[in-house]
């Protein structure tokens, strides 16, 4: 199957959007998950609810919220454009922002569950052994939660690459600008006499997702087997 330039653009854009999302999701998500796992504070439940909200809200609601906040007439959108020259409206950055917000809670939930599983005595022990907070994170929490973090990363990547509702509402469906794979498939499926194009895009989507999940799953299984036999993670 030789890919057309139209398909290549959609694949490229999808990967770019998902990759940029992950580059934000992983550090931000780790920081939030670690903070939530290790600390109790007033209003924690409220913050957790807000973070998880994109999981339960229809994505179109998130997309519309983003549109209201970041369009060129809105105060926030205007401010970002004037001060940083940054615009999210109707471009791939907007698609990445939508994917990030939709996929972030999946990553946070998984990473936090991993951090929660770590015996709190380990961190206390490390403290009495003189380890700094950074060292406790990098040498204890990170390696011990790595399988959960990886699993969260896979989920988030899959969600980001498949993001549709929020993206189409926020940045619309503009070929080579904001048209990711699912959006291209949607357009092909809607148009008359585009059945073959739709079928090809569907197959590409399945192959892409299958490949990513399969490779990650192999890696995950390997590391959890090592964990059981008491080997290094």
């Amino acid at each position, binding site marked *: 199957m030789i890919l057309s330039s139209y398909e290549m653009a959609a694949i490229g854009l999808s990967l770019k959007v998902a990759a940029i999302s992950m580059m934000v999701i992983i550090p931000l998500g780790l920081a939030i998950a670690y903070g939530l796992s290790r600390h109790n504070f007033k209003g924690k439940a409220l913050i957790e609810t807000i973070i998880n909200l994109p999981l339960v809200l229809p994505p179109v609601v998130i997309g519309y919220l983003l549109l209201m906040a970041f369009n060129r007439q809105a105060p926030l959108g205007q401010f970002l454009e004037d001060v940083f020259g940054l615009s999210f409206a109707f471009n791939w950055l907007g698609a990445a922002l939508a994917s990030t917000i939709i996929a972030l809670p999946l990553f946070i939930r998984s990473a936090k569950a991993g951090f929660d599983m770590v015996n709190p005595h380990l961190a206390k022990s490390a403290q*009495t052994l003189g380890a700094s907070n950074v060292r406790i994170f990098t040498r204890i929490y990170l390696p011990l939660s790595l399988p959960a973090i990886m699993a969260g990363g896979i989920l988030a990547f899959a969600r980001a690459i498949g993001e549709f509702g929020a993206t189409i509402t926020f940045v619309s469906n503009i070929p080579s600008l904001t048209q990711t794979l699912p959006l291209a498939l949607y357009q092909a499926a809607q148009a008359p006499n585009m059945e073959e194009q739709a079928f090809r895009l569907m197959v590409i989507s399945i192959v892409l997702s299958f490949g990513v999940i399969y490779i990650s799953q192999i890696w995950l299984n390997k590391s959890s087997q090592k964990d059981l036999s008491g080997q290094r993670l």
Partner: protein
Amino acid sequence: MSLSVNIRYGFLKAQSKAHPRPIKAKCEFDVGITAIVGPSGSGKSTFAHLLAGLLTPTAGTITYNDKAYFDHAKKINRPPQTRAIGYVFQDNALFPHLTVRENILFSDPAQTINVFLPIIKAFEIDHLLDRFPQTISGGEAKRTAIVRALAAEPEILILDEALTGLDKAKKNVLIDYLKLLKQHFDGPILMMTHQIEDVFKLADMVSIIDQDGIKPPQPIDHIIHDKDFKNHFQLNDNINFLHGKISEKSDDGICHISIAGHSFKSYQKNAEKGQTVRLYIEPKDISIALSPPTDTSILNIVAAKVQSISQNESGIAYVTLSFEADNEDTIPLTLNAAITRQSLTHLNLQKGQDVFALIKALSVLG
């Protein structure tokens, strides 16, 4: 070298939620093993956390020598990292993804393992260095946790329920290692425990924790006569607590211990000739026979006289045995034996009767 503590904790609403019982402590801990004894839930771990800086007291001061670890009035609260307090958790808290070697070197990865080899060898974990914590036994894990704590060169060591959850044989092995600890560590050792036997076998000083807080530590041979202490642990007056001196030690580890001029034999790995020791003999480790048994593994078979017999509602009778002075240097000695009421009837023991005491085990406290 003493740790002085004068703190209160748990009097704030937020704290009392997590810790229903407030903690008050005004005491000093010196070099040697101090047992902090109280039932589960009395706040032993909380107290240990407060000392180590893992929890912050509501008010007061914690000072080691002249260093202030915590001073509420002066707003000093050193983090655990700079308190030089080693903390061995009940569950050991070994890092499961690191080898024994990496666990020991965790406090200073730049250090090489050779620096710690003497202590690693003393605690007999040198063959485990490349193993992961899941693959070693409970006793080995405890020893690793102790060595790891010592490798950070603490000035104070806290052992939280170090002997809980081990069966009797493993416990006795670990007790020997803990006695060894005193030779490798010259600061105060605080041992949190709810098991009174641990106290007798290891501690120099005892501090009781109850609803009124933590009482100042007292020497163990004083506190066993303390009414509160006896009531607290439902001890009767039958504990055998003695002072003695190692008069001889043979190559096979058998020590002759002289107690008030009477000589007893006991296997003691780490004792040295001439050392004065405190001993504890559990009443149930003393049996009574009417004639001396000839073929037995028991090392101490001593002629004695029944001085008195006391019985309570339980099936156990306490027989006080007196050991006659056999020369001018000897002072009369009494020991209490616990036997079943059935044995009492069977032997038909009477006051003043001549019997033989079979002493199965002596605990040397060092």
